Structures are given as C-alpha cells and as structure tokens.
C-alpha cells in the first residue's frame, strides 16, 4: 500500500501508519519513523516475549519471523514491516497447546535462565520449516549460531530441535494420510 509517504517524507516527529499481520491478526498502528520493531512489540504492543539482549544483531534474543523468515527485530524498523506477516513467540502456541518446539524445550531442559529461549525457539521453528537447511546436528548448529545462550544450554537445544523434527515429520505424514 503506497500512500503519500512515497512522495513526501514523514517528518521525524510525526507517526507513520503501519498495516501488518501480527501473530495471524491484521493490525493497524501508528509508529514513529525511527521505532524499531523490537521496541514496538515490547513497549507499544505489550508483547514482552521477544527479548532485548545486545540490541545490535549479535545475540539473537530478539528473533521473530517476518514472512516466515527468522530475523533480528532489533535491526528492523517497524515501518519496514508494511504488509508483512510478523510472528513472535506468543504466536507459536495454537489453541492453548504448545508448539512441539516449545514442548521439547521444556522436556529437554533446553534453557537455564530462559532469557534467550524465545529467540532460540523462533530460530528453531524457522529452520525446521526451511528445506534449504540440512537436517544433521552440524547443520542445525550452524543455522542456530546467531542465537547466543550465556548459560550454555546448546547441547539440549540441539536435542530439543531434533526431537521436534521427528515429531513434526510424523505430524506431517499423519496429515497427508488423513487427506
């Protein structure tokens, strides 16, 4: 949707209208031109699951999905999400049931303090859905290297991801069988 912003800049002290989809729900909000997606999620929309760690794209705590791709929400202007689908950790569970990745992080003890966990799970769910990323442990570790865990729960994080892969594969096969 190209409004007049295409031709006259929004001054820094005026807000910009943003139409996007957040966790499956269409949303229209007004944001400052310099508002970063991470801060809008946490401060303006009250979704505190997405965490601020380094605020410079180095730790991965702020990872969300934008149109299904894992991205650092700390390095993205909210206005850049016009027309896009944004999913946060709050959008992973369905109908009150945890996503298999969430359930397996719990069961595999894939965290200690938990601060990096939402970002870890957003990267994990994205990589499991991405056919371009290999399925072996080495590929998982490489794909997850943008998420730092200071507690050092890496081993259990890989285990939780691989356990989820097995279950998600099973679910997909079951769905195919039913259809």
């Amino acid at each position, binding site marked *: 949707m190209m409004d007049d912003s295409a*031709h006259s*800049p929004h001054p820094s002290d005026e807000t910009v209208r943003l139409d996007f989809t957040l966790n499956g729900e269409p949303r229209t909000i007004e944001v400052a031109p310099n508002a970063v997606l991470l801060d809008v999620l946490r401060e303006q929309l009250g979704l505190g699951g997405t965490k601020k760690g380094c605020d410079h*794209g180095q730790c991965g705590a702020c990872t969300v999905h934008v149109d299904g791709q894992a991205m650092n929400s700390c390095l993205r202007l909210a206005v850049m999400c016009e027309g896009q689908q944004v999913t946060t950790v709050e959008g992973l569970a369905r109908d009150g049931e945890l996503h298999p990745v969430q359930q397996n992080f719990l069961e595999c003890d894939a965290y200690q303090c938990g601060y990096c966990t939402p970002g870890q799970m957003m990267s994990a769910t994205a990589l499991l859905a991405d056919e371009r990323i290999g399925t072996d442990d080495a590929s998982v570790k490489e794909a997850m290297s943008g998420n730092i865990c200071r507690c050092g729960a890496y081993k259990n994080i890989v285990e939780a991801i691989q356990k989820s892969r097995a279950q998600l594969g099973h679910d997909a096969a079951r769905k195919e069988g039913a259809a």
Partner: protein
Amino acid sequence: MRTFAYSRADSVDHAAHRTMPDAAFVAGGTTLLDLIKLDVLKPENVVDINALPLKRVERLDDGRLRIGALVTNTDLAHHPEVKSHYPVLSEALLAGASTQLRNMATTAGNVMQRTRCPYYRDPAARCNRREPGSGCDAMDGINRMHAVLGGSDACIAVHPSDMCVGIAAIGATLTLQGPDGEREVDFADFHRLPGDTPHIEHDLANGELITAITLDAPLENARSHYLKLRDRASYEFALASCAAQVVLDGDTIREARLALGGVATKPWRCSDAEAALVGQSADKASFERAADIALKDAQAREHNGYKIPLARQAIVRALRNAARGETPASETQESQA
C-alpha cells in the same frame, strides 16, 4: 536512537532523483540501524527501498548473471544458478554472519556494509573514516583484527564482507542509477583504498543507488573453494579468508582467480598471483609462490602480524582444495571455522 524522517521509494527513478540532504537508503537495515544506534551514521532522512522491483536473479544471453540489489544473502546463496555456476559465492555467503542476518541483508547492502573496526564504531575514539582528520586510534591501539594489505597512514580498517571476496574472485559489474541516469562500474574499482581520504569508501555519488550486480560469465570447468579462518566456528568475521578458482588442464593451471578477505581494506583481488599461477603445475610449490606474491606488500602493526602467515596458509589451502575439486572433511570444519 536518534530521529529521522522516513519515506518509501516507489520507483528506482524516484529513489535516485530524490535529492535530500543527509539521506540514507535502507534495504535490510542490518548495517544502517546498527550504526545509527551507535551514533556513527546520522542520516536526517531514511529512504526505504524495499518496495522496488530489484529482487530478480536472471541469466543474461552472454552468460553473465544479473542479481537484483535487493536479493537477500540467503536467497542468493541458495539460488540454483549460484549453487551450480558460482559455488564459491554460495560458500562465501553462507560463511558470513548468522541465519537471521543473511535473511535480512541484501546483495547491494552487503557491498555497502561498513568496517567492523571498533574505533570506527566508537564515537569517543579518533577515526579518520568516521571523522576526517581526527586521527586513527587503531594504529597504535588494539589492531589484532586490522588490515595488512591496502592500508594507509590514515586507516587500516578491514572490509568485513565474505560475499564481496567471492564476487572479487568471480569478477562483476555494478549498475548504479543516479539523478543523471544509469552507469556501470567495475566491481574491482567500486571500493576505494583509504589513502588520505578513508571517509570516501566507494564510488557511489550522492543520490546514486546500486540497482544490480552482474557477475562475469562463469569460468568454464573451474573448480573453486572459499576458505574462511576465524576465532570461532561460526558467526564470526574472518581473520583471513580466500576465494580461489582454478581451471586445470591435467596437472597444469590454465586459469586462476584469487581474492582475499579479513586482511585488506577492500575486497582484495590478487591479480599478480593469478598471473604467476598460469602455466604452472598445480602443486604446493606453485601455490606457495603465488601466496608470497599476493602478500609481498603486506605490512603489519603491533598485533596483526600473525595475519600474514595466516593469509599465506589460507591461499595455499584454498588453492589446493580448489585444485582437488573436493573439500576434505577436515577442511569443511576449518572452512566453517
């Protein structure tokens, strides 16, 4: 974070004709927002170019590959044309940054990324690149990560890109759109050496936009390898990296392409070393001679002397792996290391 005015460009012409003071284009945002937060970059106007139709990858009739400025690093690394005809570029892209950053970062944005020199990134430090004439705290500071090739008395900051090293070894042309129309620039000439003017980093004029990067036609029957050496196994900048392509006739090298990363102030093509390889047999002695030629002008400061033997080994091993046409398992780990 400081404030700025924001607009969305709806056409390349519109973006290029916009003449605003202190304007910056934003694509992936991974460099721009990082550096605005640090108060290193201070644009008054940010122009969002993400709606522009610059996301195509197409093979041209002459065999070259035209890559739209906004193709993401992830999509480019996995593109079938790149994987089959330019594997060295795919390897270089996947050796860079993290999954999240590659999903955001664009091809032209990667070309435009700024140095990771900690003194450049710290407004309290002296830096000729950030603030012309202020001096350089890296010269006698912690310069373990700094350049041994292409530096000057004013600046020894490393160009941080992996992708650009792959492109340097392939050869490419940049298409730029500006207020006065379109022009093309050889990729090798786009990034400037720091010299006395390290703040002038590239050949882009005010208001100009990179719209495409066109790779030279693939070298026929080339074998290639991208070797990256770094402090940890993933998600770290190179201490030394090497993109190598060789065309063999039996055991004799017919053609070679060589570029270095992590050790130079711009993506570093080693033309003299390439010439010295042609006609030689593909063995360790030839590779070592080429490496010595590539590094003959290398100059170290207090903490970065180790980069000269490290780069030498990177060249020898990248050439050896390329010539073998295989990546031994042990080298795979190291190349991710």
